[in-house]
């Protein structure tokens, strides 16, 4: 690491549950410093009681997402220099999820909705059957491929205003996974998936403004996946299958 150029004032959310406040820390500023580096510095050298979550540090595990200057981001791959406007850096727990402590949120509601959306594998064959061929150029496979690199970081979930307003809404990540499985040759749950995503919290609640796709750090497009689900559900309804 090169020598510090200056000190940065960083406001970090501290508190248990929903009650808390921003506390300011002075952190040495380096080139090529990520937001996660800043948080780690505070925990290592200023206040070891700061709670936050991370694992891989390379944008794979999806555990380090936080609100950075009011926007959801994966902090291990977010360079401070890219997000600091007037030298202000404000770090808060991810939006739309209950806070456990400081920067760590309880992600249960996020993952519970994956199950509610039937974004789980519905096996179509047993160990005695031949393996289903997955053809890379198949039109359906391409639709599935477009969304499978999701790292479950919940950045899209935090960006989504519909999640904020409608507690039942399954959210972009769960719906996108439901869509990839809907298009997966190995999944036998098409009908189950459509039924799961057509209820009060289903895909039809999406306002299609694209906050999810704008913020997804993996550059996926959950909004498009949701549009696919809406279309498939509409067709099923017209055929009397919903």
């Amino acid at each position, binding site marked *: 690491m090169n020598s510090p150029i200056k000190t940065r004032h960083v406001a970090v959310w501290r508190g248990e549950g929903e009650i808390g406040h921003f506390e300011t820390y002075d952190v040495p500023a380096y080139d090529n410093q990520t937001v996660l580096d800043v948080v780690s510095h505070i925990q290592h050298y200023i206040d070891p009681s700061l709670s936050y979550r991370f694992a891989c540090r390379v944008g794979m595990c999806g555990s380090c997402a936080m609100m950075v200057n009011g926007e959801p981001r994966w902090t291990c791959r977010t360079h401070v220099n890219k997000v600091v406007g007037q030298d202000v850096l404000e770090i808060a727990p991810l939006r739309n999820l209950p806070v456990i402590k400081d920067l760590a949120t309880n992600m249960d509601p996020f993952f519970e909705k994956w199950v509610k959306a039937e974004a789980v594998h519905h096996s179509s064959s047993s160990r005695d059957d031949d393996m289903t061929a997955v053809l890379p150029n198949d039109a359906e496979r391409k639709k599935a491929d477009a969304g499978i690199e999701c790292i479950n970081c919940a950045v899209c979930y935090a960006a989504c205003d519909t999640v904020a*307003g409608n507690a039942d809404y399954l959210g972009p990540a769960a719906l996108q996974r439901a869509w990839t499985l809907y298009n997966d040759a190995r999944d036998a749950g098409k009908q189950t998936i459509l039924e799961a995503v057509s209820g*009060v919290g289903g895909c*039809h*609640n999406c306002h299609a403004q694209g906050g999810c796709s704008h913020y997804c750090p993996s550059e996926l497009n959950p909004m498009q996946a949701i549009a696919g689900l809406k279309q498939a559900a509409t067709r099923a309804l017209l055929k009397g299958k919903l």
Partner: protein
Amino acid sequence: MLTVRLYMLQRVTALLMAPLVVGHIGVMIYAVQGGLSAAEILGRTQGSVFWFSFYGLFVLAVSVHAAIGLRTILHEVTGLSGRLLMFFTWGTALSLCVLGMRAILAVTFLVRGVS
């Protein structure tokens, strides 16, 4: 709060409204440009099954469409749900329907002898 059925109802009513709105605006421009008086307009609408159906369909589509839209906004802004939200949805749809139908009946069937 939108199920696939409510979603479809809102889309279908939107599809219905699009040509009806264009027709309505066309009629308004024609009536104003042509300098038709109230009596002349009523003369053409009274007893007209066509205008009753045209605006009747319009009112029905609006009632359903607006009720579903307002229901979504109300739920997302205030968190209202369950029975209360259902009453609100039906209440909005029925109120709009009654108000609209009253106006249509007034110009197509009920008003007599305006000169």
